[in-house]
């Protein structure tokens, strides 16, 4: 239960709770204490880190492959007319079976105030799908904008490393504000206003139906992310992330933090798109020996890839013991 509550808090923009001494379980306390008394040997840690970085692209490669395959399936289906995956990411048919993006379906329903059966079926299917796969997993494993943004982020980090640009943060609560405003706008104006500026929809359609002027907007958002604020769209604006995040609170697929081996040097927080979800990796903050990362996590696996001591790993709740 506390996982769900904490997930909601973080999704809507609150900072992670700093744990009270009394919240920390005795086992976790023992580990914290042990670590205090036996400080890590910096040198051997550096060696471990060096060794690790050599082969640390496993999840990234899988993720990129999945993302490309899904999006290319749309393109190929239309281009060769094989009717495998028709439509675009907003709504589609997979081998004739309806699917609808949850946020797009929500916007259309609010605007139109009516839902035809096909949309109900499509929404239910996608809801169940992401309930099983983990909500915001959509963001990093399917959304084509995510990939562009990931590359923009690389550029941003390179420039930031040179000291040429600086990351400007925003208050994360603004994303909830956008969510509410876009929902209200759809309801009041009868237009899916967000859809006009949704970079996910624009990129998906551009891939399938050919590029258009709307890509200029996508370009501007990317420039903003490169030069002004790291991954600003996904962190502070996109309501799709919140929608899928809410679904993900009930999902069994999670990234799990194991306190025992963690060195608290924070490599994970440096690569993470939503670093607040990794707050428990800060020294002394983990309340249990194992903690699930909250549902705002996109399950991209970057932290899993980067952690030199394998303290972060994928976990399927309820299945863990049988794997």
């Amino acid at each position, binding site marked *: 239960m506390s996982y769900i509550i904490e997930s909601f808090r973080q999704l809507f923009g609150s900072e992670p709770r*700093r744990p009270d001494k009394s919240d920390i379980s005795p086992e976790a306390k023992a580990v914290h204490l042990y670590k205090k008394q036996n400080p890590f040997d910096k040198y051997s840690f550096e060696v471990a880190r060096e060794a690790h970085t050599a082969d640390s692209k496993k999840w990234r490669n899988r993720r990129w492959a999945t993302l490309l395959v899904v999006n290319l399936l749309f393109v190929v289906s239309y281009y060769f007319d094989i009717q495998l995956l028709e439509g675009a990411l907003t709504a589609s048919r997979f081998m004739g079976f309806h699917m609808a993006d949850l946020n797009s379906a929500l916007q259309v329903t609010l605007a139109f105030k009516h839902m035809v059966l096909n949309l109900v079926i499509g929404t239910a299917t996608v809801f169940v799908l992401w309930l099983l796969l983990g909500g915001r997993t959509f963001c990093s494993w399917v959304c084509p904008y995510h990939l562009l943004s990931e590359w923009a982020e690389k550029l941003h980090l390179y420039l930031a490393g040179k000291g040429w640009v600086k990351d400007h943060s*925003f208050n994360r609560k603004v994303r909830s504000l956008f969510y509410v405003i876009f929902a209200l706008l759809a309801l009041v104006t009868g237009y899916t206003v967000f859809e006009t500026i949704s970079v996910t929809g624009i990129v998906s359609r551009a891939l399938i139906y050919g590029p258009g002027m709307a890509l200029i907007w996508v370009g501007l958002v990317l420039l903003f992310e490169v030069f002004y604020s790291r991954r600003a769209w996904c962190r502070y604006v996109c309501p799709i992330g919140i929608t899928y995040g809410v679904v993900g609170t009930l999902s069994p697929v999670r990234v799990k933090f194991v306190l025992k081996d963690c060195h608290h040097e924070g490599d994970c927080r440096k690569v993470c798109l939503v670093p607040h979800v990794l707050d428990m990796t800060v020294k002394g903050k983990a309340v249990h020996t194992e903690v699930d990362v909250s549902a705002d996590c996109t399950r991209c696996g970057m932290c899993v890839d980067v952690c030199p001591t394998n303290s972060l790993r994928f976990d399927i709740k309820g299945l863990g013991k049988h794997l």
Partner: protein
Amino acid sequence: MSEQKKPNKPVKRRLSAKQVEQNRREFLRTSALAVGVMGVSLVGLLPAVQGKSLALRPPGALKTPLDETEFLSSCIKCGQCVQVCPVNAINLADLDKGAGVGVPFIDAREQACDFSCDGLQCVLACPTGALTHDLDYPADARMGFARLDNPRKCLAIQGKGFKGQARGPDFEGILRYDDVDRWNPIPVADYPYDLELCDLCMRQCPIEIRIAQCAAAADEREQNKDRVAQIQGNECPPKHAIAFEAFGDEEGGVKRMKPVILDGCVGCGVCEMICPPEPPAIVIDIKQDVDHMRGVS
């Protein structure tokens, strides 16, 4: 809103002057971001509010121009209608259409909907009902209403014939010609005409063609009228869409004729596409259809 005014400060800790300054800046930045993003999305909304997003929509786009608002709200912008159309009549709107980014429209002059699909595939493909599923046959569609926009350009009115490719050799539009291939459309440029008096708009009108087919089928099965009715059902348009009316004096043996639009017109746009003069004499008026404006149904 009030939540947003409080920068994220943990309750108990006192903030240093520097942190307070940082928080103040973050708050200002965040406000600017909120204003910026909302501004952009409202700019996108503007053309729709001003009614500038109007365009010829696929069949079943909730029927009438009055429904444009509902059409825009219900379309999920997936392009499934685009994918199924055999003549590629449907395009998705770009940024210049404002709130209509990603919604389908038809540029009839470039490529009209000629109902090549027979069964309104786009309507069947639409997942949200933006193309209303109430339509069963082409004759039920209400996309607009043809209008003789430029009578002086009309070849028939001038008493002129037409010879050659209707829209010239470079025109890429396609049409289905029953005498060439019952199922597959071919380029209009591959089907030259030789007409004593131009009647292309009527000749290619899908509704008129269907009426002729139904009549032929009925003749063939004269003996078994009941079955004919059963087979044809309301697939057969009950009303003519366009006709030619003689007027004026005869000139050199050719009677001058005038196209008149009748109540069966669904506004598919084939007449606009096929009309040889540039700009076309006949166009689709998207602000009316047979059930509205003219008060007939």
